[in-house]
């Protein structure tokens, strides 16, 4: 029973935290967007009925209220059951992923309760052996949300938006998996907690050891969360709004929150798999037995890292142009898939013979691994440059010589 | 056969054709600009806009001998062996110079000039004029002078003298003359003798610039907003071809349409200014049903069925066909009356005659018979009932034995029936009246149906000289008004929409008189007498 309540409390905490975080990160994103465009951003909504503006911190409440009180319009031509089901599937899948994602390491104390002899692990479903595969499975279900809402809307723009989105998500699951496989190979486990503690114990975060895998996972994570420059599903500036063209009100809110949650998932996974999770050198220690301050510090470190990643997501949105759809698919299948396989093969070979080589050369094992990793990245990058089709430079020309060549 | 070469394009004319070079060039699709020449007027060759290079083929040698100087095309007959050049630099320069000369003191007040948009000076300036103005004077006066029926903007005039020739040659009234000499020439009227004749409106059409302004149209609407529809004037039995020019279902002016078989290039003022009744607010605008003393407004959607039932149950039927009906409507009404009562009495309504025919020296005639289609309705009645009966005979018969139902088609522009006659007609059980304006008859009618004015209906008319012409619909009828044709079409339970052209084909098949119309009617109409002679 205690286990039951513990899990319930964790779930409640997690959902409340995620929803609040989503609401406020929307505000942060709007601020970032505004600042990058030399604007000020939302700074008006504060305490209602007063002149207190609080830098616009009341904006999320106003946004949420607007979503709830807006007319929820259901077009007459939709397939009703699936139209309602689509957003629900999306939100459920996006939330269910967090069952295996740790948001800290452990809490040491027993709260004076006799049954809680063991430290509380800060993850909803601790010890899920197939944790990473679970993430994949649930992410796969999220595709249905897009596909169904697109099809049920009975609108060709929505349908094509849904298919676009689904094709992108399905395609980028492969490089995502290949990027992870290296980490799993090194850690020897699919459990995210184990992966973190493995990095903490070795002291070397995975992005230092296998940068190629990190790059692949990072890019695929962007694509999976459907953020710019991979937001082909929506392309709000160019195409009709994608699969949620026909949605409004709370259902639209559900879709948008689940898109935000995908970004959280991607950020959490990036931090946990490649940036050492809660670990920070000299601050958090690496053992499983912790004191209260350390346990809280670990949570703070993990969430701080995640926040930084999310901020990077937000800045990236305004930094680089969007891909074309064929480029998007080409990147997944022609570039990242082979590179992911290369990364995997190199790592597998290194795992088998690495220690011997390190001993032979006299380097420490970690340094040698890092060297191999960065070497692989360099080779892969050069190969991409070499094999890439000839591209033209369409930046504005400055040199008159080039102008002449143009003619 | 006359062989001519115009801009290296060969043209062959019949031996009996006497054309000038402007007309000949038009045959091959070359437009020679001109101001003073008009096909209906004498040639003065005063504007010099139509200057061309002209030469003759020497019949003996076959050599072309060009004239040393430019000649006006309007005054140069296209005889056998003529060679005309209109696209040379010399001609272009001559046109530009003429244009510059005309514009030297022509006020540039196009924004407030009613002619802007259809002004020849504007058009030719853009086509043939110079790009820049070399003169340092900027004319900006636009003196206005009231010369009678029309307004004269003195400074806009380019002295083409079309209007002067018109009042001398066509209307024969000679009010206008050119006063002054040289640069001081102006159009004017003699003190005390203003321009006042029944054709005076035509000078406005004739004026190539905005010098003569129509008082009726002045400042009402810009011409580029107007949409024109080919129609037939219904003012008198001459049946002149006209353009209805309208915007947003409001007629702004009527203009003559060139039809050499009927009215040539002219129409009378009576026809030209005879459109305001279309927009008269006193028109009947809703159908009315009278039962006893109660008056109700029936629903158009249910009215045809109701009418059919009432008429069928009434007994003997008579129909009065007004000469304002189109041929198609008269035909449909006869058919409908016969379908209700095979023995129905069909009579011709009163034919309004005002005064005498007014014949002008130029040959133009304003007919005294002020209805457009007496001949057409008569022929339809002859074909449907074998004889022609008038309203008086119907009234006589009405006194002897009562009719169950009488259908009166009106559409007269003027009051046409007096109270006693109306009372006599109203003795029928069911009296259906279709009319434009309220009359004693429509007050007594069981069903008073609004009818459409001439510009609101399509159909064909036969004028006094058996010329059949078709008119297109100019404006939509006001809400609540249905054209007679479409109502009768529905009463006869025909399918699809009412289309006058297809009904006319039926008429041509059914009635021999109209047989020539079976192959379609051109813009100038068809002379039905040709058929009778044959």
């Amino acid at each position, binding site marked *: 029973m205690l286990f039951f309540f513990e899990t319930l409390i964790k779930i409640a905490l997690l959902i409340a935290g995620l929803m609040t975080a989503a609401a406020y990160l929307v505000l942060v994103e709007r601020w*970032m967007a*505004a*600042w*990058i*465009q*030399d*604007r*000020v951003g939302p700074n008006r909504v504060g305490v209602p009925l007063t002149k207190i503006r609080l830098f616009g911190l009341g904006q999320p409440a106003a946004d949420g209220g607007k979503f709830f009180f807006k007319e929820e319009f259901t077009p007459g031509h939709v397939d009703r059951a699936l139209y309602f089901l689509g957003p629900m599937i999306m939100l459920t899948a996006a939330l269910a992923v967090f069952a295996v994602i740790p948001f800290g390491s452990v809490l040491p104390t027993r709260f004076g309760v006799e049954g809680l002899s063991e430290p509380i692990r800060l993850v909803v479903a601790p010890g899920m052996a197939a944790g990473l595969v679970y993430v994949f499975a649930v992410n796969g279900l999220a595709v249905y949300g897009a596909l169904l809402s697109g099809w049920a809307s009975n609108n060709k723009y929505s349908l094509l938006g849904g298919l676009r989105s689904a094709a992108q998500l399905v395609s980028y699951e492969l490089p995502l998996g290949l990027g992870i496989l290296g980490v799993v190979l090194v850690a020897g486990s699919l459990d995210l907690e184990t992966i973190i503690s493995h990095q903490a114990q070795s002291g070397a975060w995975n992005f230092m050891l296998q940068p190629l895998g990190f790059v692949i996972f990072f890019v695929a994570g962007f694509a999976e969360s459907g953020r710019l420059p991979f937001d082909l599903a929506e392309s709000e500036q160019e195409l009709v709004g994608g699969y949620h063209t026909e949605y409004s009100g709370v259902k639209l809110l559900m879709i948008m929150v689940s898109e935000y949650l995908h970004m959280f998932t991607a950020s959490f996974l990036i931090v946990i798999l490649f940036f050492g999770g809660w670990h920070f050198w000299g601050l958090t220690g690496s053992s499983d037995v912790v004191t209260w301050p350390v346990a809280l510090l670990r949570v703070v470190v993990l969430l701080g890292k995640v926040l930084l990643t999310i901020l990077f997501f937000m*800045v*990236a949105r*305004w*930094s*680089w142009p969007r891909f074309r759809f064929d480029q998007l698919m080409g990147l997944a299948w022609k570039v990242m898939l082979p590179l992911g396989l290369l990364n995997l093969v190199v790592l597998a070979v290194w795992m088998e013979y690495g220690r011997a080589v390190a001993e032979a050369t006299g380097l420490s094992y970690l340094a040698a691994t890092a060297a191999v990793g960065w070497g692989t990245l360099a080779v892969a*990058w050069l190969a991409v*440059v*070499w094999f*890439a089709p*000839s*591209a*033209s*430079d*369409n*930046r504005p*020309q400055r040199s008159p010589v*080039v102008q002449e*060549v*143009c*003619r | 056969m006359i062989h001519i070469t115009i801009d290296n394009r060969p043209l062959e004319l019949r031996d009996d054709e006497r054309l000038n070079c402007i007309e000949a060039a038009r045959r091959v699709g070359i437009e020679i600009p001109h101001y003073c020449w008009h096909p209906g007027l004498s040639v003065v060759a005063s504007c010099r806009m139509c200057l061309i290079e002209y030469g003759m083929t020497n019949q003996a040698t076959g050599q072309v001998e060009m004239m040393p100087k430019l000649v006006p095309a309007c005054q140069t007959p296209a005889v056998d062996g003529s060679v005309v050049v209109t696209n040379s630099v010399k001609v272009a320069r001559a046109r530009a110079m003429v244009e510059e000369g005309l514009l030297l003191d022509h006020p540039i*007040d196009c*924004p*407030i000039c009613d002619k802007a948009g259809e002004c020849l000076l504007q058009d030719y300036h853009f086509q043939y004029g110079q790009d820049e103005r070399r003169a340092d004077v900027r004319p*900006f*006066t*636009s*003196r*206005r002078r009231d010369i009678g029926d029309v307004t004269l903007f*003195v400074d806009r005039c380019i002295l083409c003298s079309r209007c002067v020739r018109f009042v001398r040659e066509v209307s024969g009234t000679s009010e206008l003359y050119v*006063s*002054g000499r040289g640069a*001081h020439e*102006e159009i004017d009227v003699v003190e005390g003798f203003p321009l006042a004749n029944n054709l005076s409106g035509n000078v406005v059409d004739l004026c190539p610039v905005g010098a003569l302004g129509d008082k009726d149209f*002045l*400042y*009402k609407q*810009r011409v*580029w*907003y107007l949409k024109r529809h080919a129609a037939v004037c219904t003012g008198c039995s001459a049946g002149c071809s006209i353009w209805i020019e309208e915007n947003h279902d409001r007629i702004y002016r009527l203009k003559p349409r060139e039809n050499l078989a009927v009215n040539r290039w002219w129409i009378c003022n009576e026809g030209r200014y005879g459109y305001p009744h279309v927009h008269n607010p006193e028109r009947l605008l809703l159908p009315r049903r009278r039962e006893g003393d109660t008056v109700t407004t029936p629903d158009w959607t249910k009215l045809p069925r109701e009418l059919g039932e009432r008429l069928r149950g009434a007994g003997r039927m008579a129909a009065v066909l007004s000469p304002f009906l189109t041929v198609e409507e008269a035909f449909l009404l006869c058919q409908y009356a016969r379908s209700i009562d095979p023995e129905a009495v069909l009579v011709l309504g009163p034919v309004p005659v005002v005064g005498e025919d007014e014949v002008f020296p130029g040959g133009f005639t304003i007919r005294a018979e002020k209805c457009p289609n007496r001949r057409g309705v008569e022929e339809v009645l002859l074909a449907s009932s074998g004889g022609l009966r008038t309203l008086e005979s119907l009234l006589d018969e009405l006194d002897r034995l009562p009719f169950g139902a009488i259908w009166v088609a009106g559409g007269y522009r003027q009051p046409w029936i007096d109270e006693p006659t109306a009372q006599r007609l109203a003795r029928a059980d069911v009296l259906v009246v279709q009319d434009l304006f309220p009359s004693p008859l429509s007050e007594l009618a069981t069903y008073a149906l609004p009818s459409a004015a001439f510009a609101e209906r399509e159909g064909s008319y036969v004028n006094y000289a058996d010329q059949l012409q078709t008119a297109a619909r100019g404006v939509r009828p006001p809400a609540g008004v249905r054209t007679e044709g479409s109502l009768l079409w529905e009463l006869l339970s025909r399918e699809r929409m009412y289309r006058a052209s297809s009904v006319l084909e039926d008429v041509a098949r059914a009635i021999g008189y109209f047989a020539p119309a079976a192959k379609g009617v051109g813009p100038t109409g068809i002379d039905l007498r040709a058929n009778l002679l044959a």
Partner: protein
Amino acid sequence: MKPNDPDIRWVKEPPMGPTGKTYLSLFLGGFTTTLKHLVSKKKTIPFPDRHYECPDPLIYRGVHRLNRDDQGRVKCVACFLCSTACPAYCIDIVAAESPWPDREKYPESFTIDELRCIYCGMCEEACPVDAIELTSLFDLSGKSREEMIFDKEKLLAVYDMTKDAEPRRTAGRPPTPPRDTGGPS
């Protein structure tokens, strides 16, 4: 246009070199630009607190006005050129013969539907007497659609309101000469 038209000059973009194909400089370039703007000075004007000062009211396209001439009469001559040029069909004019001796034509009514207007400035371009102009008033709002249909009086009132701040574009042009009512000259 045909592809083999000899007048077409086909410009080929310069090919990207191997360093360019790494996309590193492009990647970092985009990122630095973004970051630069992230910390740069903001250009937003907090609107109700501070108002936008139009640097050149002559080129701003805001609410219309109908200019008055020297005697305070409406300058418009009802030539319909603005309503002809209007791509949104928002100008409605009823013309009449003017009651003044020096003018032929004037607008009996002049109506602009400001809601339908797209503020393209074509009316201003088309006007031959510079009677209609667009002012720099931009915060146009109203409580009903009817209120936003400006009639002649309202448009003239806009002129009265803005004439000091925004002089007429062609203030220097001489007035039209008085009409010559005499006989033949």
